[in-house]
């Protein structure tokens, strides 16, 4: 086989050269390994991020180099697809070149073989015995039958020819595996919507890059044809809304895929385990025809997609769909008595009074169940998770054009009996959150802390020296004014916690704290919509692949030829055999036959 798949210089016309190059095993192995190596890239470099992130990561020079190499979506680049196509081509060549020989192998064996051919087998033994030729033949055939062969005889005068084989259809395995590979790759390429890739390549289709456009205003050049044979798009659909198109990421932009129906999200809900971890995500949807007729309705869950005439809809993610938030804003250093009120939906930007500050409500999430480790708490096998309740994220733009992002959790965490609200902030998107731990007062909320803060500042302005006694005094006064009662221990903890919070607040980038008073939650479901006509061939391809591999590994072909001829009083046996797989094992089998025949010859 080796020689078969290698170049024969004698007959190397250009075409032959090309073919035998394409079909050569050296190329096959190299391609397999090359593809493996090329595939690594996309796993170490996270794919399909917004281009800004890469810019930050690599700096503009390498950013451009990598972009031009297509490293941000490796597996869709021409060069990667090229390698795959090349492998397919090589496999195809290989199959066509090998098939004549392999088909020949599957035909029935000639019983008669030339002596030279018998001797030419990988294993050969010849024996002179005292047994009669017939006796020898019957032993040989009995032996072969024991071994699971079906020997066939042909008599020619004094000579009897014997032929037998196992694993006649071993070669089928070769065809199955390799044709399967071709089939699967072809179907996969088809599913990777070649037509669209082509349109992109030729420029008739141009991804839109502005993600904030309403559907109507997206340029037509970014719309894919509705009769597109295969696509895989995503849509984020707020509860109660309807969509008739999905989006497909392409480069640093996106393409729009119109759908043959409209998807209406009736409701989205998350089912939770008792720990607060999500158990299931469910979207209740209705599909309408363009004319408004109900086509199908039901719920879509993870692992349970909905299918409608060749199009599948999957539950792939969820997010906030524009929840209504009512926030109280407390000025730091002012008593908490009269907070300002802010109300708005996630996604909106609100003016904070006439301060010149504006608050952009970015996100809201109903549940936050985090592992203790993520909060830097010490592990607790009994309660590995902490429930921090709802959280909301907002960006504060100050009048001087600066901005910072804030994240607030609604449920306090408890350390040594003292509760804390966790308030995160960061100056830049890439950065980690810094956390401020605001102590919770005896009647919940942050009011007591804020009042204490204010009182301390008043005192400081009044020229009081910072000292533990003073801190205590001021706190006592405060408790008296607000007539709250706390045990000495609680007081101690609270004062300490407040002083810590005070230092943490030193470089807090906003002059006020926002506290969520109430909210009206609204989900948005992330649905993935795919159309994949190429799936059935892929399934069959997989079946063929596995079957083929099994045959190749475990049903090797073994061929046996022998002749027994009259030799004086006795007989002479010439036995040759070869196997085309697991040769070492077959060598042992053949040796066993030899031994048996030997001692049968020596007996008598």
């Amino acid at each position, binding site marked *: 086989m*080796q020689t078969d798949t290698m170049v024969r210089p004698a007959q190397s016309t250009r075409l032959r050269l090309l073919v035998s190059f394409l079909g050569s*095993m*050296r190329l*096959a*192995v190299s391609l*397999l*390994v090359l*593809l*493996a190596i090329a*595939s*690594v890239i*996309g*796993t*170490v470099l*996270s794919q399909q991020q917004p281009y800004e992130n890469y810019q930050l990561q690599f700096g503009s020079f390498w950013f451009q180099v990598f972009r031009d190499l297509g490293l941000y979506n490796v597996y869709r680049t021409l060069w990667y697809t090229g390698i795959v196509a090349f492998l397919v081509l090589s496999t195809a060549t290989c199959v066509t070149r090998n098939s004549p020989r392999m088909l020949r192998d599957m035909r029935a064996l000639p019983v008669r073989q030339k002596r030279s051919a018998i001797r030419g087998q990988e294993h050969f033994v010849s024996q002179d015995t005292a047994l009669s030729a017939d*006796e020898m033949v*019957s*032993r040989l055939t*009995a*032996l072969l*039958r*024991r*071994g*699971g062969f079906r020997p066939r005889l042909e008599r020619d005068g004094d000579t009897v020819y014997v032929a037998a084989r196992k694993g006649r259809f071993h070669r089928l395995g070769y065809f199955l595996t390799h044709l399967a590979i071709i089939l699967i790759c072809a179907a*996969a390429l088809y*599913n990777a919507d070649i037509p669209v890739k082509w349109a992109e390549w030729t420029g008739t289709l141009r991804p839109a890059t502005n993600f904030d456009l309403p559907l109507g205003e997206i340029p037509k050049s970014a719309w894919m044809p509705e009769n597109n044979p295969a696509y*895989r798009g995503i849509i984020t659909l707020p509860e109660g809304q309807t969509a008739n198109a999905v989006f497909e990421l392409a480069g640093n932009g996106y393409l729009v895929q119109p759908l043959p129906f409209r998807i209406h999200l009736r409701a989205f809900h998350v089912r939770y*385990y*008792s*720990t607060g971890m*999500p*158990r*299931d*995500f469910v979207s209740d949807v209705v599909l309408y025809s363009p004319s408004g007729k109900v086509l199908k309705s039901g719920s879509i*869950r*993870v*692992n349970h*997609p909905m299918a409608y005439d060749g199009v*599948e809809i*999957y539950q*792939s993610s969820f997010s906030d769909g524009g929840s209504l938030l009512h926030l109280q804003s407390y000025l730091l250093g002012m008593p908490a008595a009269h907070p300002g009120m802010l109300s708005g939906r996630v996604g909106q930007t609100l003016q904070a009074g006439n301060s010149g500050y504006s608050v952009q409500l970015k996100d809201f999430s109903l549940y936050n169940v985090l592992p203790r480790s993520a909060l830097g708490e010490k*592990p607790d*096998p009994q309660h*590995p998770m902490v429930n921090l309740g709802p959280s909301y994220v907002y960006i504060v733009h100050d009048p001087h054009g600066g901005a910072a992002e804030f994240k607030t959790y609604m449920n306090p965490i408890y350390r040594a009996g003292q509760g804390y609200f966790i308030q995160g902030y960061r100056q830049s998107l890439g950065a980690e959150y810094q956390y401020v731990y605001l102590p919770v007062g005896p009647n919940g909320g942050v009011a007591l802390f804020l009042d204490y803060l204010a009182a301390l500042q008043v005192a400081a302005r009044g020229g009081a020296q910072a000292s533990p006694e003073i801190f205590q005094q001021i706190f006592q006064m405060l408790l008296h004014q607000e007539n709250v009662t706390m045990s000495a221990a609680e007081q101690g903890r609270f004062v300490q916690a407040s002083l810590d919070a005070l230092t943490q607040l030193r470089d807090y980038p906003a002059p006020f704290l926002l506290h969520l008073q109430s909210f009206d939650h609204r989900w948005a479901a992330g649905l*993935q919509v*795919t159309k994949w006509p190429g*799936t059935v061939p*892929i399934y069959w391809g*997989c079946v063929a*692949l*596995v079957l083929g*591999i099994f045959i190749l*590994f475990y049903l090797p072909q073994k061929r046996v030829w022998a002749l027994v001829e009259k030799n004086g009083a006795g007989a002479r046996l010439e036995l040759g055999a070869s196997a085309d797989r*697991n040769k*070492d094992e077959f060598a042992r*089998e053949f040796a*066993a*036959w030899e031994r*048996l025949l030997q001692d*049968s010859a020596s007996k008598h």
Partner: protein
Amino acid sequence: MAENVESWAKELPIAYQRRSLGENLRREALWVAGLSAAALYILAQWGAQFGYWQYVVLASWYVALLLGGMAWRPLQWTVLATALPALAAVWLYAHGQTPANDWLLRYVLQGLAAVLWMSAFLLLATLAYLAHAWTGQAAVGRWATRLTWAGVIFGFIGLGVRWRETYLGHPSWGHIPVSNLWEVFVLFCASTSLFYLYYESKAENRSLGAFVMPLVAAAVGFLLWLTLIQHMNQIEPLIPALQSFWMKLHVPMMFVGYANFTVASLIGLAYLLGNWSTRHGGALAARLPSPEQMDEVMYRAIALGFLFFTVATILGAVWAARAWGGFWSWDPKETWALIVWLNYAGYLHARVVKGWRGNSMAWWSFLSLWVVSFCFLGVNLFLSGLHSYGKL
């Protein structure tokens, strides 16, 4: 005379005599009967609630165990020695016993306890194998094998009992215990040792253990770290993406692949060091099987691994198609599975078609260990993606 020719032919070594499936079934009648009875019992008991996929899962396990047990008798005893104690534990739990009030559960049968026993036995086995390779004492070698068996059995008992434990208290949490890093590490240790034992019995040589088991020991070390420091043995509910019957086939098959690849690569190491010692005159080469034999075992392991790995990857793709809406999302785990697969496809072609043998292939097999372990572990630790539930 025909009879005596037939009887003469019977002297052919059993290994080379062909037996029809029927004969085989008859020779293993007890095994077949027992296994079938078990399957029927399951059907009778729970068949009512079965969807088609539970039939698929049950059938796959039934066939796999049936053929496996017929191909290699010791597997029959392993299954028995695992099933009975595990069922005993289930029975104890069913009768209101808990690790708190029942010492047998607390110290032996409880999932965690059994896993710790596994760890202990496998560590001892490793030492024994090293001692055996060093001293060449047959008795030590036999003990090494016994200890490994003990470890394997306790490992699977642990997994079996844990499966039940996932349902205790929170019926909605129940899942086959192959869902987080801790659980799959138990599976890895047990199955790698099991397949090592298989190849040991085929190669009839125990010195290979000195090369394979140290890696298992390392895995055990990591497992203990996960248990004692990370408390990862806590039973937790499944995230939605994992709530699929595909997991019951996909993950175990993957680990048949991993186990075989691991064994193969470490035999590759043995091969290389064996060669080295023949060149520099050491005792090692004498202890190890012949290079040809090791080369063959290596190939057989990789072949078996490749077969299962292929099926597992395909099942993964089908699962992904159901869960994420695409056969292939090029997420790191998938991609690394492909890398492993292509790598071994390359190996098989080089060996089978180009007929390469010896050092180069041993190196290839050995170096593949790094590819495999990155796919198995590295991805979870260093890369994030759809599979990131395997995280620390």
